[in-house]
């Protein structure tokens, strides 16, 4: 399973991976490999600049302001699954 987890999603990807593994072992009697891609928070500033940041209190790198909206990194998505042919 391939998961993309945004910094602002509120989802703890390690816990998610652990539970996916538990569920697969119980239901399918098989292990599952979970790959998690970390997606940084993205902001769109009123000055027009879009930037990624790991910290919520980093200002816009261009105008140093905080007049901005969240533009990404606020979701946790199951991107794809890879299945073995029997």
């Amino acid at each position, binding site marked *: 399973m391939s*998961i993309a987890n945004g910094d*602002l*999603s*509120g*989802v703890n990807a390690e816990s*998610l991976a652990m539970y996916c593994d538990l569920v697969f072992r119980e239901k399918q009697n098989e292990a599952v490999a979970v790959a998690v891609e970390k997606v940084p928070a993205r902001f769109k500033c009123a000055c027009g600049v879009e930037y990624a940041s790991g910290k*919520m*209190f980093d*200002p816009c790198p261009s105008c140093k302001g*905080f*007049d*901005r*909206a*969240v533009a990404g990194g606020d*979701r*946790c*998505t*199951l*991107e*794809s*699954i*890879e*299945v*073995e*042919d029997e």
Partner: protein
Amino acid sequence: MSEKIRISSNVNAANDLVARQNRALFARKKLPSLNMISSPGSGKTSVLERMAARMGTTLAVITGDIQTAFDADRLTRAGATAVQIETGGACHLTAAMVQNALTSLDLDDKKLLVIENVGNLVCPAAFDLGEDKKIAVLSVAEGDEKPAKYPALFTRASVVLVNKIDLLPYVKFSIDRVQDDCRKLNRDIILFPLSCTTGEGFEEWMEYCEGLER
């Protein structure tokens, strides 16, 4: 041989689907809806008691706790129409819990629905319940660094009720710092400083509630 299948689905998709159903119901009933989130003890229920004194049964409340119906009982006594969700251990409400509670709540003739979440400054912010707006409650006794420490809620909230301002002479708390940090996280956020003990600030908060789009 293995095959890769693209999914691209939000892991919260099951919750979000039920949240959309709740939202559609509130829209059909022309009922504004708020999801009230805070730490335990910040005064969510006390705020709602004061609102109930003004609105009576036209205020509908779904209130969540791990255990007990203390809060629904308090709010019913205060005059509101209230139902309790006991999560049994879950630290936040989900859209499905709210949908289930809605089956025992008559939404006709109501002016406002408030979902009082489980006291917790973290997880409740991540779950859409179908509400129009999230309302954060922060009491001055908790400290003014909370928006900086728990940014997820304050990034998503439309309003912060800064509660217990009658205690300001006794605690180290800067409303300016809270406002500054909140605005950095969320430029559109509105603060209402208020006190459930003295009633200060309630006029402004009630005016905001009465002005919510139906």
